[in-house]
């Protein structure tokens, strides 16, 4: 029966529906799996087994009464960036201490309203700032994947949603919530052989999600299949009057798009995503993806997004600037930790020096610098103008194509310590994903193959604004052609 944890979300819901097992049984399997595996993987930073069983029990009753929601009884993991009522939420930062939100994020509420069960809170980079999970206050997540014949070096599952990706890949939840500001859903999904989508900016409410860079942050799922992602995205997205940038638009039936043929679709291949020094395997994977779509009748079109190379530098002005404003609230007065100093100013400075980790401090300093008097025009205003040109590039190509196909990351997962010395080298992880955040577009990462060390690689599909349907359709076609079924072999203790 331990195979229950290996089911996809869709399969598990079918099993619950035909009473092959109950939500309590399913939840018990996950709790046991987490208990055994988590000391090795560190994917969960807070396990909530009692709450999970309570929710599962209530869920089974609801199902028995014929009142099942769309996720009735499905055990999920929640990234620690989401505020969960009465359950500690820290954004994996020391500065939040033992913060217990008195309210629930809109996205997680949407999941509970459809009957989902919460297994616990998932590890992540502090305030979602990082691409490797090593900036977490709780220590890094160890990826369930290992290099073939390697020295078993601990690999990163990517970041910032590294706990979400690792938990899904290691079957420690059916699916997980995640968030994406520069690639934090898609890069970890690519590193762990899972599927992750960042919807169009404004689709999912940001209410109750700890803010990092408000013009870029967007919620989305990480799951085992494209269909699971489509189902979760439908439920996570909603109009919310408590988020001023939430869009008042219909949420379509995306699960139906996953199996729609791509015949006749025009798929753009942006030449600027071919980087100097990019591993041959990434190029080969991209060509394979192009071939699969061509075989299924899509038309491949070479396109150009000329300002692509400026996306990361723009991001490293805009995101830290917004973060320096958003994180000004952590002053040790109303919640979180306080380090008493000799006077009020000293108390603020000591509180923030002790509470924020190195990477967060670095970004707050950059953000404050680019917004400071005399530098605002040279940095922030210029960046927002270049950002406009990046968006215009996309608008131009979407006149002629329905979606874009790119690699998800410039490499496979790396080992801890291999990249962290040079911040700019670490930032380059997001080179293919950050453009979609700057332009507010939907992007999905779907596993497409393994590199020569046996590690997963992903392809990314970027769609027009509000056209997640195209992302799901093309990702579905890639999923069917790639037939990626490899799972990491469990080196961690199982239940």
């Amino acid at each position, binding site marked *: 029966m331990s195979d229950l944890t290996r089911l996809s979300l869709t399969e598990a819901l079918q099993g619950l529906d035909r009473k092959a097992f109950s939500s309590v049984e399913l939840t018990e399997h996950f709790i046991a799996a987490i208990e055994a595996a988590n000391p090795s993987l560190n994917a969960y930073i807070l396990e909530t087994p009692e709450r999970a069983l309570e929710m599962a029990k209530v869920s089974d009753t609801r199902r028995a009464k014929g009142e099942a929601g769309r996720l009735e009884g499905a055990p999920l993991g929640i990234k620690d960036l989401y505020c969960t009522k009465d359950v500690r939420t820290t954004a994996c930062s020391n500065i939040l201490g033992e913060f217990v939100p008195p309210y629930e994020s809109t996205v997680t509420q949407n999941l509970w309203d459809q009957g989902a069960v919460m297994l616990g809170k998932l590890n992540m980079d502090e305030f979602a700032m990082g691409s490797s999970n090593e900036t977490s206050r709780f220590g890094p997540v160890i990826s369930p994947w290992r290099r073939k014949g390697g020295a078993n070096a601990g690999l990163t599952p990517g970041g910032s949603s590294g706990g979400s990706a690792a938990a899904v890949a290691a079957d420690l939840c059916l699916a997980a919530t995640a968030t994406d500001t520069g690639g934090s859903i898609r890069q970890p999904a690519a590193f762990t052989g899972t599927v992750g989508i960042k919807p169009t900016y404004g689709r999912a409410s940001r209410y109750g999600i700890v803010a990092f860079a408000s013009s870029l942050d967007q919620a989305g799922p990480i799951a085992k299949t494209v269909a699971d992602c489509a189902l979760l995205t439908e439920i996570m997205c909603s109009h919310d009057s408590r988020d001023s940038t939430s869009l008042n638009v219909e949420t379509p039936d995306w699960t139906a798009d996953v199996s729609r043929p791509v015949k006749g679709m025009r798929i753009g291949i942006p030449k600027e995503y071919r980087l100097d020094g990019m591993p041959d395997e990434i190029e080969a994977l991209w060509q394979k993806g192009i071939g699969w779509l061509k075989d299924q009748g899509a038309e491949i079109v070479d396109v150009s997004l000329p300002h692509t190379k400026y996306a990361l530098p723009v991001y*490293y002005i805009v995101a830290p600037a917004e973060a320096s404003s958003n994180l000004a609230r952590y002053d040790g007065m109303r919640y979180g930790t*306080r380090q008493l100093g000799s006077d*009020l100013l000293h108390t603020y400075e000591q509180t923030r020096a002790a509470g924020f980790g190195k990477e967060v401090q*670095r970004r707050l*300093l*950059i953000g404050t610098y680019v917004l400071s008097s005399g530098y605002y025009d040279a940095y922030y205003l210029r960046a927002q*103008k270049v*950002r406009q040109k990046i*968006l215009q590039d996309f608008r131009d190509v979407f006149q002629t194509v329905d979606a874009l196909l790119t690699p998800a990351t410039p490499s496979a997962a790396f080992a801890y310590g291999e990249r962290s010395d040079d911040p700019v080298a670490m930032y380059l992880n997001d080179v293919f994903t950050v453009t979609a955040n700057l332009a507010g577009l939907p992007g999905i990462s779907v596993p497409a193959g393994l590199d020569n060390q046996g590690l997963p690689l992903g392809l990314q599909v970027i769609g027009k604004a509000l056209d997640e349907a195209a992302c799901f359709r093309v990702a579905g076609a890639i999923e069917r052609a790639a037939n990626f079924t490899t799972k990491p072999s469990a080196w961690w203790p199982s239940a």
Partner: protein
Amino acid sequence: MSVSKADVKKVARLARIAVDEANLEHLTGELNGIMGWIEQLNEVDIDGVEPMTSVVEAQLKMREDIVTDGHKADEILANAPKSDDGFFVVPKAVE
């Protein structure tokens, strides 16, 4: 434009983050590395381009000017490092 130690000190003060003198040199180097890499934005012709204010073409919504929330003093104080009788207790700010 290169970032000096004095700049980092000033910015750290503005950001309300205490930085050790010993760490200043290292931070200045890192910030210079990042800001130097960002300088490439100067290559882009931005003449006549409006700065982006929003990625989605949506009007900010207006709502009735009425109270929609409140009476949650206990919830608001629940996470305070220090509170007393319905108030946050903070260090002395005015002599």
